[in-house]
Every structure is written in structure tokens, then in C-alpha cells.
């Protein structure tokens, strides 16, 4: 288990119990190294979202220890949580966008909280929005976009501040095949630039022929595939 400073995410005996009969995670031990690209899969309701939520401390485990980048999450005070969240870019399954704000404003939020200067912020946002193919809709309100476009706004916001860890919760759930492959390629590019990525999906075609690590959650257990 001594993976040294290479391990960026580590779970020890982690348990998450919502109710006596709802136990998405049971004594999970797991190490993810820096720069890994990991698929997380399992049937709907297995606990993929729950697993990810615990990694950015939106949810507390009912037992065990979670260590991110050398920091035990249970030791973090409320005022230290922002530091963790800046390291972890999350693409939420339900997007969590501000629907009455523009694409630009939504994506800019991640940089505003870091105190970016106006020009640098605008450049960065344009660049990332172009990367997800939404340049022409930069100043549209999110509510006017299709589901697939909204998904890409969510992706842009998660990566614009270049976090070392990216958690993607079904980031292709609303996309057609072509867009899905674009998102996978985008994630691979981010991974190539050094980001550690956990890509949760129930779409088996995405990892059927992959050489990458695949984690399968079922009945509270996580197995390697």
C-alpha cells in the first residue's frame, strides 16, 4: 500500500451508509495515482455519484479515511474546503449551471473565485469554451442551450481553472455518439497534460476496448476490471 507521493487519491476502509439497507460503499480500499485515467462504472444507483461526492467533501463517509493529495479530508475545517475544491474540478451529473446566466459567466465563475484579473479571465474562458465547441454561443444564456450544449458548459467550467484532479460524473449522459467521443478525447487531452481523471459512466462502449483502469461498483464493493 505504500504508493508514496504518487498516490493522489486514497481510500482506506471507506464506508458510506445512507440507511441500513442503502450502503453504496462498504469497506473500500483504493489508490489512484497521479496522472491516472480511471473509468468508474456500475449500474445506475450503485454509488458512482456518491463515491465522487465524497472526494470533494460534499458528502462525508460514515467510516474510513479519504486522502486527497496527501490531505486527510476528515481533518479539513470548513474554511479549508475551498482549497480542496480548487484542486478538484467536478463535472456534475446534473450540471449545476446558472441557467439565467450566459455561457461566459458560468465558466468564468471558477476563475472569479480564484481572483483572476479581467483580461486573463476572459482569455482563458474563451479558449476553454472554444475547446468544447461553444464559441458561437459564448454570450447566450444557458437556458437557451440544448442538453448536450449545457453538458459541455459544465465541462468547460470544471476544467477552466486547470485542476490537477477532474471528476466527471456521467459527462456524456446527454450527448450523441459524435459528441461523446469528443468529450472522451477532451478528457484524454487533459489527462495527457497531467490531470488525474475519474470518469464515471454506465456506457460500457467507452471502456470496452480501453487499456485504462476500470473500476466497477456493485453492492458496496469496488472491483478492478
Amino acid at each position, binding site marked *: 500500500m505504500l504508493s508514496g507521493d504518487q498516490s493522489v487519491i486514497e481510500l482506506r476502509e471507506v464506508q458510506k451508509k445512507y440507511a441500513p439497507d442503502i450502503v453504496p460503499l462498504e469497506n473500500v480500499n483504493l489508490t489512484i495515482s497521479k496522472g491516472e485515467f480511471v473509468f468508474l462504472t456500475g449500474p445506475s444507483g450503485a454509488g458512482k455519484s456518491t463515491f465522487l461526492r465524497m472526494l470533494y467533501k460534499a458528502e462525508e463517509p460514515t467510516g474510513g479515511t479519504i486522502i486527497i493529495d496527501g490531505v486527510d479530508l476528515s481533518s479539513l475545517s470548513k474554511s479549508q*474546503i475551498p482549497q480542496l475544491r*480548487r484542486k478538484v474540478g467536478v463535472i456534475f451529473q446534473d450540471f449545476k449551471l446558472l441557467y439565467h446566466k450566459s455561457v461566459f459567466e458560468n465558466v468564468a465563475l471558477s476563475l472569479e*473565485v480564484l*481572483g483572476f484579473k*479581467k483580461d486573463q479571465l476572459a482569455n482563458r474562458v474563451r479558449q476553454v469554451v472554444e475547446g468544447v465547441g461553444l464559441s458561437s454561443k459564448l454570450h447566450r444564456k444557458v437556458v437557451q442551450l440544448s442538453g448536450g450544449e449545457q453538458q459541455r458548459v459544465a465541462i468547460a*467550467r470544471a476544467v477552466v481553472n486547470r485542476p490537477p484532479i477532474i471528476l466527471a460524473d456521467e459527462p456524456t449522459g446527454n450527448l450523441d455518439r459524435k459528441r461523446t467521443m469528443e468529450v472522451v478525447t477532451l478528457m484524454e487531452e487533459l489527462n495527457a497534460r497531467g490531470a488525474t481523471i475519474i470518469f464515471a459512466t454506465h456506457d460500457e462502449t467507452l471502456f470496452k476496448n480501453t487499456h485504462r483502469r476500470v473500476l466497477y461498483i456493485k453492492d458496496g464493493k469496488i472491483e478492478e476490471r
Partner: protein
Amino acid sequence: MPLGIIFKRAFRDIRQNLVTHIMTTIVVALTCLVFIFFSIFSLNLQRIADRFGRELAIVVYLKKDIPQNKIPSLYQKITSMKEVEKVKFISSEEAFKRLENYFKDEKEVLEGVDPLFLPPSFEIQINRAVYNPSRVRAMAKELAQWPEVQKVQYGKEWVDRLESFSEAVRAAVIASAVLLLVTAAFVVSNTIKLTVYARQDEIEIMRLVGATNGFIQGPFLLASFIQGVTGSLVALIVGLFCYKYVYGIIGQTELIKSLDLQYLPPSYMAVIVLVSGFFCMIGTAMALRRFLKL
């Protein structure tokens, strides 16, 4: 802390909720106005009391049989008291002369009267820097106990009345200040809470992308500070116009003119503005603490 963004957000919150914010500002202004009204009253009363105290003299009548050679040492003793500004000795002869002056053309009434029948006295002027009614009273009491002194006279009733009156007014000023602070803080923090409700989704998302508490709270605190400041500024301007208007009506008589009334001094106004802004901010910070579960 990215101040630019905090300002931008604060002004956006105010703009998007302009009517509520204006209503709140009016409430803050009205509370401030109550305080300003009492303050003007109290400050001017203080000024009048000061002037009155400055002109107030204590007259110490000495026993008639007091030997002349004792006068200088008494004079020294009184002059050395720190409340004393100036002491003037009035001999029996001088007192008689004053009396003659007073009767002028009817000097005859004093014919045959012993020119020394009046007691010699000291007229003491109080130093107005240390003027304080209770001190004057204490001093008069002390002087009356000296063996050489026959009687002490001073505007006792005036001093007492003025004292209790200015105490009452000062209490009103303090009470209105407390009212101002509590009301303003309460009203403003509630308005801000409405804004927070409206921004709950945004706050939730800001948290998820790593916003600090300061970043989340900053705009709300700034908006409340702005409300406290504008409310008190409006009150000071309205107060000034009211003061000018009332003075225009009553200020024509010589009596009022001689009182030399004034509006609040600039430093006092600055304190009102800052304290108002500050307390609205504190009230909001306390409300946010509970509301955002910080």
C-alpha cells in the same frame, strides 16, 4: 480578495433588487433622522450650557469684620482652585459705589447710610474648560464652609435644572443611538437575507467551485455597508434642510440669535455615517453566519 468582483456583485444585487434596497435605505434614513434630531438638540443644549456656565459667577460674601490683611491670602486661595478662571475682589466701598450707580438720580435714598454696610465679596468666574454643574455646586459648598465666608451665591437652581435637563437629553441621544443601530442592522440584514435567498443556487455553485466564505459573503456585506452609509447620508441632508427650515422660522428673534445654534459638526456627521454603515454590516454578518452555516 478580488475587490473588483465583490463591488460588481454588490452593485448587481442592489440593482436587481432596487425597490427593496431603496425602501430599506429609507428606513435606515428615518432611524438616523431620529438620532440626528436628538443630537442637534443635545449638542446645542450643551453649547448653551457652556455659555451659561462661562458667564455664571459665584459670589462669595465675606464677613463684614474681616481684617483687610486677610484678603490677599483668601484671594490666593480662591485663584489656586482649578475651576476658577478669574477672581475679582469687591470691597464694601466698591459695593456701595455700585449701589449708588444703580440708584443714579435718586442717590438721596442712600443718604445717611453707612458706606460700609455692605459686606466685601469675591466674584468668581468659572473656567469653562472644566465647567460642570456638579463641580460648581461642590465648590460653592466648600467655599461656604470657610470661616471667613458669610454666604455663597450662585445660579444654583439654574445649574441644577440645566444639569438634569441635559442629562435627560443625553439619555435620549443614547437611547436613539441604540435604536438606530439595532433597527438599521435588523432591517438591512433582513433585506440582505432576501437577496441571499434569491442567490441560493449561485452560492451553492460558488461553494462547489471553491469560493471562500469571504468571497461569498463579501458582496452582501458591502451591499449592507452601502445601505447603512446612504441611509445616514440621506438623513443628514434631510436633517440639514429641516434644521434650516425651522431656524428660518424661529431664528429671527434676538434671543435665539444670541444662542448661536448650530447643525452637527462635520466630525460628528462622519461618525454617524461610519457607525451606521458598520452596524448594518455587523448585523448582516451575524445573519449570514446563521444563514449560510459558516
